[in-house]
């Protein structure tokens, strides 16, 4: 009976199990092995010890292209994730107000997140053109200086300074436009906050801001945590828009060369599968450490109501 139940269970999950073995577990092990190999696809992989990793350390330490890619990726993640959390919560809070046209607003805020990345890249490259783009025009009308968004030729000569925006900020802007997914999750979480909590706080004389700060925000921390972890993973994996804005070159001046693009080019342009696998593992380990740190810290700030979840 136990045995039969086991076999039935395995039979149902077998498609996934096969996929896990072929497309996840084996590739996972193979890329770890290849990261210690030289492998150009033409000849079989040849073990070279830690040479690929030494090369990574050299390139990162010497400020080479890989070091720049690592920095770009960190910058993109560290700017886009917190901003998307703030914007997601802000929009969700606005949508929780009982006003006319609520459903229309919700649809408008969400819609950009389903626009295909290929189309939204075309759109933003056009809008953010440093010379004739409408975003810079809008900034000018507001009395603000124009920015070197995509393909600003001077970005190659001088990187953007403090409060000046460059290509990576343009990528951040694109990601913020697609914040709709997380916004909906925040909105649902706001709706699940027990009414009595707000009523009690209001009776104690708490104003709107105080209720947001001391009731809503603590109740949202599980979602914020989820958003941090998923947002971090997504920003490390961002590829399509990064590839499209520079047609796969990382220009201007390597400013949009993120690790994912570097990895792709190393593997499929330079055909250095061993070195590319090592870069993939570097990315994986960095992400793993960051996620682990988030999980550790979550004990101190994530508030789970009602005990078990």
């Amino acid at each position: 009976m136990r045995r039969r139940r086991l076999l039935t269970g395995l039979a149902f999950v077998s498609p996934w199990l096969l996929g896990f073995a072929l497309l996840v577990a084996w590739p996972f092990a193979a890329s770890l092995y290849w990261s210690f190999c030289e492998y150009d696809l033409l000849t079989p992989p040849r073990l070279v010890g830690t040479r690929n990793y030494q090369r990574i350390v050299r390139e990162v330490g010497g400020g080479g292209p890989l070091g720049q890619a690592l920095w770009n990726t960190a910058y993109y993640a560290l700017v886009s994730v917190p901003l998307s959390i703030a914007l997601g919560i802000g929009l969700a809070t606005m949508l929780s107000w009982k006003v006319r046209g609520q459903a229309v607003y919700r649809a408008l805020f969400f819609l950009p997140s389903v626009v295909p990345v290929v189309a939204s890249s075309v759109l933003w490259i056009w809008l953010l053109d440093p010379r004739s783009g409408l975003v810079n025009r809008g900034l000018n009308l507001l009395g603000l200086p124009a920015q070197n968004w995509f393909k600003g030729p001077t970005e190659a000569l001088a990187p953007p300074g403090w409060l000046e925006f460059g290509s990576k900020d343009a990528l951040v802007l694109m990601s913020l436009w697609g914040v709709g997914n997380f916004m909906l999750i925040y909105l649902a979480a706001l709706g699940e906050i027990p009414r009595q909590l707000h009523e009690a706080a209001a009776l104690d004389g708490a104003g709107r801001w105080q209720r947001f700060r001391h009731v809503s925000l603590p109740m949202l921390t599980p979602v914020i945590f989820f958003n941090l972890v998923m947002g971090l993973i997504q920003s490390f994996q961002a590829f399509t828009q990064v590839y499209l804005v520079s047609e796969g070159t990382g220009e201007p001046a390597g400013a949009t060369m993120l690790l994912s693009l570097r990895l792709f080019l190393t593997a499929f342009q330079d055909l250095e599968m061993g070195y590319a696998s090592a870069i993939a593992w570097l990315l994986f380990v960095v992400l793993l450490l960051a996620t682990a740190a988030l999980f550790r810290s979550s004990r101190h700030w994530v508030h789970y109501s009602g005990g078990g979840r």
Partner: protein
Amino acid sequence: MPIDRPPWYAQPLLGLAATLFAAPLLLLVLASLKPPEQLVEDPYALWPRQWQGSNYPRAVSSMPVTRYLRNSLILAAGSVAGSLLSCSLAAYGFARLRWAGRNLLFGVLIATLLLPWHVTMIPRFLLLRELHLYNTLAALILPTFLGDAFFIFLLRQFFRTIPEELSEAARLDGLSEWGIYWRIILPLSRPALATVALFQFIASWNDFSGPLLYLSDPRHFPLAYGLEQFISSYADQTHLLLAAAVLFTLPIVVLFLVAQKVFLQGITTTGLKG
């Protein structure tokens, strides 16, 4: 009750935010209807000098749209079928059956959600190439028949809400597990299955990195990848490019407007009940 009253600045603030979110799409549509000279001479004009609808047929005829569209539809339909079948089977195994090792395997499945695709990209590519799938749409469709952790999770959450008594009664009536899955659970799970179908359709329609990796012959390109070819070869024809981007986005927008409820529920379940 005072806590229900929105602040006085609610409408202006929402209006401002809505304008900022909608403006890029509106500007895109307006610009796609401008004559090409206007885009160059007067890039800041919001309104078309004259409505040039002919940008659209010209954009369509400047690339093999019928073939790209056919490939996109094959890719999306195949992937939707694959995901629905493989993910509902696995979700049934995880949600409705008790067997040794179930929770362990489910933990493994959840862990794969945190695994970045880079780590498996190269071996996966070489494996599919070994199987002679390189440069075929099958390289992109077949993996969907082997399950997707996110969709399995979504369906499992839904299957668990179906009362166990239904399964018990069916078992007493002599129905096999397969029969319960096929004749009871699946028909009751239409909303969740619709969510998976919708998300998979959009993922396939929008997918760019898959075709970039696996397809080299333009005969197999789906629209998303064909459009990129168009970007590099028509860099100076902004009006056509913008029109093509509008056409490519349109089906997704229509789908969203038609199936808004499915979208909103799907995203909320996966995010909250984690």
